[in-house]
């Protein structure tokens, strides 16, 4: 077992893996963009505490936070088609598997970000809203100009951690046979008998992405510091 790692093999796997980064990024982007929109809706609905809807959302959030993404993916992939077919007669069995992966990420992110945003919005002191009203701003104007920017500030660190976590989770798509970066590394490793090089490259990619995201969130954190020294993380 001297031949654990070779540079040639490492360089050799790079072109075979690079095309699969796109799949991971695509999953993360869907989760991030659509999930954020869903998250804002969930947060606002939760803050309004509308009866029934609040209970439903509360169950949804507990479920998404209390079960693994793998379970969620399985339920959506196997359960949703049966559910839709028997209830509405809609056949989605022929859908692209990627759609089920996106859906899982979106629903999962909607719950996580919903809670993150809710906590962030509720952390803004009421006197900020009252000050907004007192200068004659409407409710929505106060929310958008005063409350939301301050909530964003609070949510930024959690958001950064969340995105990195999502990257790590994209490999669950492999269970449906959707090959992402990790999935491809696994198949390459199995085929050649040398797994380390492929995984080393995957690790490198994750590190680069993490650094880039950290940088981005550092800049965002600065932008939203409003004269306060940010807590270094």
């Amino acid at each position: 077992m001297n031949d654990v790692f070779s540079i040639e093999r490492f360089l050799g796997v790079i072109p075979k893996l690079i095309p699969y980064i796109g799949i991971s990024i695509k999953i993360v982007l869907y989760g991030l963009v659509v999930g954020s929109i869903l998250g804002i809706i969930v947060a606002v609905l939760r803050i309004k505490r509308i009866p029934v809807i609040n209970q439903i959302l509360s169950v949804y959030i507990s479920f998404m936070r209390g079960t693994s993404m793998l379970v969620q993916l399985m339920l959506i992939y196997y359960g949703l088609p049966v559910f839709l077919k028997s209830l509405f007669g809609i056949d989605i069995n022929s859908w692209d598997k990627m759609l089920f992966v996106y859906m899982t990420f979106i629903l999962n992110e909607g719950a996580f970000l919903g809670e993150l945003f809710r906590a962030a919005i509720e952390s803004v002191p009421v006197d900020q809203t009252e000050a907004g009203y007192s200068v004659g701003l409407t409710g929505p104007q106060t929310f958008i100009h005063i409350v939301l920017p301050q909530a964003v500030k609070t949510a930024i660190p959690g958001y950064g951690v969340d995105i990195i976590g999502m990257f790590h989770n994209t490999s669950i798509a492999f269970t449906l046979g959707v090959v992402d970066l990790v999935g491809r590394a696994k198949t390459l490793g199995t085929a050649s008998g040398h797994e380390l090089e492929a995984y080393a490259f995957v690790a490198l990619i994750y590190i680069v992405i993490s650094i880039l995201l950290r940088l981005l969130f550092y800049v965002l954190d600065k932008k939203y510091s409003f004269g306060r020294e940010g807590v270094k993380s």
Partner: protein
Amino acid sequence: MIEVKNVRKSFGKNEVLKDVSLTVDKGDVVVILGPSGSGKTTLLRCMNFLEKADEGKLVIGEQEVDLHSASGKEKLQIRRKTAFVFQNYGLFQNKTAIQNITEGLITARKVPKTEAVKKAEEVLEWVGMSDKRDYYPAKLSGGQQQRIGIARAVALDPDVILFDEPTSALDPELVGEILDVIKNVAQRGITMVVVTHEMSFAQEVASKVVFMDGGVVVETGTPNQIFYHPKEERTKKFLERIIPQDQYYI
């Protein structure tokens, strides 16, 4: 003229305002005095719809609104005729000093930006904060924040400014200078209602003093009447506690 008519407000079983009425003439500086818990803050908050009264009417100029059932549009109209100076300054934490002042002008009143900035610079100059123009509240002292708070209210050019204990969160050595700023507002002829525990300020600046206790207006009069010739026993008791005897009889 501003009139508050028959305001009632309870928090649960606690009846905080029991049929309070108040008249404020144009240019008046009405100082509201009263012990802690007498409902002073609640009254001001009801006048600005930050609290929903159970009953009562508010008249500002030509407009009369119901303090309990005003529509969203009416609330907005009233709020755009009034301004509030908060005990804890209430500055927008995500806005710089000048943005705190321009926000209500640009976003709420649709004043063109250049005009709003010009106006804001003028009031900043007036409260001595020009050099802090682009500072966020987090970087300002309490006294500086309250100067901005007052400047923000004045810039809105409201029919009345409501002050709720504007100096009580400040370090004692800063109180005097902020009171001077507020005196300056009074000298501009701006109508104001001021809740304060600063008796000498009340004597000096008020055109009318209102003494509240237990959710009712006990007595109203000129500073001279209230401080030197109070009619009601409760007023006398309160003043005896607040003002040292020697000063009281000068």
